[in-house]
């Protein structure tokens, strides 16, 4: 099978869906001529023209509002939000309008739009361009949230998102755009709400979203050297969340470490850990461990920035401790 970058996979997904469905269009800052700062949409404007690949002024609330209206009236916009941090600018359009229109119209309106944006620190982009804000939108009923963890997931999930009749926010890790993975040439979709069990094991479950999947896989390699059997789960979508796969694994291993790059406080790790604690309580042999980004604005200093995110070593260390029955917190 061929191996392509995550960036190429996203490009392919958009191009394929735009060819398939003429109501799909792409809108955002620098999506046409510049192909985004990450060169993801390069070549699309040449194929589809400026009517369907639309460069906007720096005006997120404006073009997001435009996209919500377009979606309600029959188009399927893909909105490019250059940095996940700019989600704050479109909160009303996304959370008050797009997320609620279907409900408030009694099902008469659909908002089939996709917000494509990114997350992830350690790119030396400082506090306003390094946040992972997926928990924010996961909290809002009416939005679906996808978290691709490789080029394969990026393509399959984005195509599903474009075809979904509900607003979907899809987060790509900006550090993974050049990471390659095997991606089939034939068309495929990845359904929402189906987690991937990447590796089976029976002593500890590592749940990793987005790029934290790679961190979990690296941690598993460390632990396997110590003959610890690790199960790795990538939820792939946060909303809907594949609770069944997660709970089954938690029940099997009795120990879970949830790793996500959002801030740990009130975050995605908290939600997943809490569901496990509620629904698999009697199977747990150790507290469910949350590992998120440190609860500080992401520092610009590379040395400090690297300390704020979960690493394979830290994940392995926590897993090792709960397997040994060591306490992470005082009794």
């Amino acid at each position, binding site marked *: 099978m061929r191996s392509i970058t995550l960036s190429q996979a996203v490009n392919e997904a958009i191009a394929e869906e735009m060819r398939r469905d003429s109501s799909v269009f792409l809108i955002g800052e620098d999506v046409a001529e510049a192909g985004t700062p990450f060169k993801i949409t390069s070549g699309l404007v040449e194929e589809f023209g400026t009517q369907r690949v639309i460069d906007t002024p720096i005006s997120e609330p404006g073009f997001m509002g435009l996209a919500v209206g377009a979606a309600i009236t029959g188009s399927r916009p893909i909105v490019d939000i250059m940095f996940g941090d700019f989600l704050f600018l479109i909160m009303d359009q996304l959370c008050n309008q797009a997320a609620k229109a279907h409900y408030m119209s009694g099902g008469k309106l659909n908002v089939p739009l996709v917000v494509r944006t990114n997350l992830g620190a350690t790119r030396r982009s400082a506090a306003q361009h390094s946040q992972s804000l997926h928990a924010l939108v996961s909290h809002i009923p009416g939005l679906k949230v996808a978290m691709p963890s490789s080029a394969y997931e990026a393509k399959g999930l984005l195509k599903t998102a474009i075809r979904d009749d509900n607003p979907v926010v899809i987060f790509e890790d900006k550090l993974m755009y050049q990471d390659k993975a095997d991606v089939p040439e034939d068309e495929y979709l990845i359904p929402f709400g189906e987690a991937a069990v990447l590796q089976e094991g029976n002593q500890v479950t590592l749940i990793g979203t987005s790029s934290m999947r790679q961190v979990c896989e690296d941690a598993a390699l460390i632990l396997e050297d110590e003959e610890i059997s690790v199960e790795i789960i990538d939820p792939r979508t946060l909303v809907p969340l594949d609770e069944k796969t997660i709970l089954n694994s938690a029940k099997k291993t*009795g120990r879970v470490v949830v790793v996500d790059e959002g801030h740990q406080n009130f975050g995605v790790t908290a939600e997943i850990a809490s569901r496990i604690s509620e629904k698999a*309580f*009697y*199977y*747990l*042999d*150790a507290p469910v461990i949350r590992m998120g980004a440190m609860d500080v604005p992401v520092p610009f200093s590379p040395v400090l920035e690297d300390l704020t995110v979960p690493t394979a070593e830290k994940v392995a260390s926590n897993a090792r401790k709960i397997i040994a*029955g060591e306490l992470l917190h005082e*009794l």
Partner: protein
Amino acid sequence: MSYEVKMPQLGMNQDTAVVVAWFKKEGEKVEKGDPLFEVETDKATMEVEAQKEGYLSKIRVDEGSEVPVGHLLALISDNNEGSDTAQTDLAVSDTLEPSEPEVETVKNKSTKIEVRNIESPSNKKELINSSSSNYGANAGDKILASPKAKFAAKEMGFDLAELRNAGISEPFHFADLGRMPQSSSFSSIYMQVSAEAINALILKSESVQRSLLFSKFTSSAWSFVFEESALEVVFKDTNGESYLETGADTLSSSSETTTITLIDLCETRLSAYETGSNNLTLSFSQLQNEFTVCLSFNEKILQFSDAVKFLNELGARLEDPILQLI
């Protein structure tokens, strides 16, 4: 069980009060509602009724003493035991903060007030004891264990307090249950069977050893009942020394091997040997022309019905050895 009588709060700003008089003596029977003592504050003098029936077991505050609100004044015990119990109870409550008693409304001088059910600290301790009695000796001191370990222990009917008693550190995890001693379900079955045929066989041929016959028949009865399971026979002599008689059949080495210990007591006056351990043990003794065979086993390892079957098969072989040898 005993109830604490404490200095009630009779006014909003009252911190202390004087016990003017006790209406009951130590050891005296007290009915609920009996005037128990008289108390004086800077505003009023009041009688306080007993809330519980029992015996006034210990008066701690003499008449005329001024004590803070909530101070322990006396105990009312269910039975009129010696002062020993009272002392212990007091020792317990001494270490705890006196709780503020609940008092009904106080209107004016000589209003009768009622000290309501005061749940004394020592009383609480007993409650904890009874509700967590399945956790054994360290009751009141919560046993820390993972949900999985607790759940599994409950399912298996194990008491986690045994792990604590065994000195295993808390919190307990699932793997710690494996370190828990198995609760005993040791059994012994006795069988009496005619020794005539075996004795006749031994008389006929000096080369035939009784112990060897026991071993052969044991193995044969075992493989008849448990086709898949291999048996290893160990002899234990009356000096306590053991030696391997027959190893497990190599053909069935893939399956689980069970070890059985045989003890021949026929040359002694002893009648049976029971081990009360997980080890499977068979003892043979002889009185006149009858063998007594005793099988000791753990019912958690070997089911009772299987043990009966096995012993019956062994009995049949002992009664009719020729048939078996053919």
